[in-house]
């Protein structure tokens, strides 16, 4: 019995993955080294290496189930690694909860939106980061004013004219736009976008991609997870292709072509 289970563990232990890569230039804002994430016996991330440099937009690509969202949630602090090291600006950090990643200046647009349907838009935007007086009581007027401002910038959200409307009544694209607006408002060093355009119209998608490009010049780096390689090529400086929890390809935009990246996404 003992022998059988030990043998089994060896079978599922991570194999040495190929580790292609681009060496970080300078100290990265965030660097993940040798990251392993297991769900029971399943290895979702297999010695993954990943970094985000200053003033860059990284495209994170790969098939369904490759582990992109797992990595994004890890950087957001809500999905700690089984093993591996994380460095923020060269200093070792642990991202064990959202507060840790917030301290590292990370803001995320989650693939599953992360809004509360039964709460109004304003309350969703300020959820967990309410504007309060020193006793913890909320300043409703200030939050509403800011919410209106936020809803008008970033992505132009069609058809939202009431910040007190419950999110449950919004369309899929409107919800996504609210989630984007929230993240964009609170963004600091790093913005993680996990398939942010999946429900957006063409116009709103263009707007968001343009915005990500502009953010770079304002000093916020981004990671864009997408299945649309053309979108990635519009804004990204570097591409990382994942497959089965490991990095299978990495190249700077100037060193590769759409065809080559597409090939790696499809082939693996």
């Amino acid at each position: 019995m003992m022998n059988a289970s030990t043998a089994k563990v060896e079978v599922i232990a991570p194999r040495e993955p190929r580790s292609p890569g681009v060496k970080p230039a300078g100290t990265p804002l965030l660097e993940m080294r040798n990251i392993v994430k297991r769900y029971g016996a399943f290895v979702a991330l297999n010695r993954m290496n990943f970094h985000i440099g200053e003033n860059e937009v990284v495209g994170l690509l790969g098939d369904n189930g490759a582990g992109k969202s797992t990595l994004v949630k890890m950087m957001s602090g809500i999905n700690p690694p089984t093993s591996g090291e994380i460095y923020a600006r060269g200093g070792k950090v642990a991202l064990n909860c959202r507060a840790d990643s917030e301290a590292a200046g990370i803001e995320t647009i989650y693939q599953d939106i992360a809004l509360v349907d039964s709460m109004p838009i304003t309350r969703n935007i300020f959820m967990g980061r309410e504007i309060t007086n020193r006793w913890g009581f909320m300043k409703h007027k200030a939050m509403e004013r800011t919410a209106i401002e936020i809803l008008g910038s970033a992505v132009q959200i069609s058809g939202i004219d009431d910040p007190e409307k419950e999110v449950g009544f919004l369309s899929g694209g409107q919800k996504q736009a609210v989630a984007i607006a929230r993240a964009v408002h609170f963004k600091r060093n790093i913005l993680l976008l996990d398939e942010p355009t999946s429900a957006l119209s063409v116009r709103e998608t263009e707007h968001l991609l343009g915005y990500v490009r502009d953010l770079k010049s304002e000093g916020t780096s981004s990671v864009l997870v997408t299945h649309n390689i053309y979108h990635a090529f519009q804004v990204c400086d570097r591409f990382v292709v994942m497959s089965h929890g490991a990095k299978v390809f990495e190249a700077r935009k100037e060193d590769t072509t759409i065809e080559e990246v597409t090939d790696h996404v499809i082939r693996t």
Partner: protein
Amino acid sequence: MSVSQSAHIHAAIAARNDRSLAAKAIDWIRTRPEGGIAVLFVLVQIACVAGALAFPTSFRYLSEPNIAVLLKSIAPIGIMALGVGVLMIAGEFDLSVGALYSFCAIVAATLSNQWGGDAGAEGASSLAPFGGMLVGLAIGTLAGVIHALVTLRFNIPSFITTLGAMLLWKGATLLYHGAASLRFKPTEPFDTIFDGSLGVVHASIIWFAVFAVIFHFILHHHRIGNHFFAVGGNQKAAVAIGINPTRTKIIAFAIAGFMAALSGIVAGARVGSIQPGGGLGLELVAIAACVIGGHALMGGRGSILGIVLGTCLMFTIQDVLLLLRAPGFYFEMFVGGLIVVAVITNMAIRRKN
């Protein structure tokens, strides 16, 4: 970079603010969880007052003794329901509040009596009842925290945890005190503070009102209230955005336990004695009040006004049935129907929206 596009939002808000009062009222009814029940409550009150004016001798709804009795009956369940309702919004249940109601009151009264807090005792102590009450409230709060820790640590439904806790606290009551009723005639000033009256208004209803206002500010205007709604509405989203669900839920459970203890002690002080089995079944009445008041069973939706209106409506109906000399079982039948009707109305209003 981008030009602000908020002008149309400002315009839309201004347009909405410009509408007539009636349009705003309809909007409120449609969007608020307690909207439907508020309408029903007003209609019932109008009907009762009209009936009382038309038949002053046979339907004594507006008579002073009736109003006094009605208000007194609302308070204990109302106080308990405030805690239960807050916990429901955070997405959890506490089925043990009825058992805690008895247990905490028995402990508080026993200690108070032991420490010389009985009004008839020699050398009666004026502080003893407060000491007993403090211990009772602490036990209630602690019990809530324990319910939370077990539920969250083992990741099981609070329905199960507190079903077990209900039997535990019920047994603990019998173990601690036995099945006999316990005299609780506290000394002054405790007696006046919890059993005095201002005209027809009994102290217990004032306590209910005070706590309803406090809870309104906590739930709807304080950060922690927002976290209750977030965690109850979509826990995953709340976690992803940085709210600590464990801490939030422990606070909600603690509030439910505290309010259960408070309601037991307030009820005991009013009646002058405590029945060890007196709280059994009250948890369902409190949950019913919340559901009637527009709370979602799955959490994330509800309001303090809804809890207050739900409780008041339930006891108004009980009162009317008593005035009409209907047998007691009609009350349960009516409340049963009311729960279903309230939820159907709420759903219908929301779907129309």
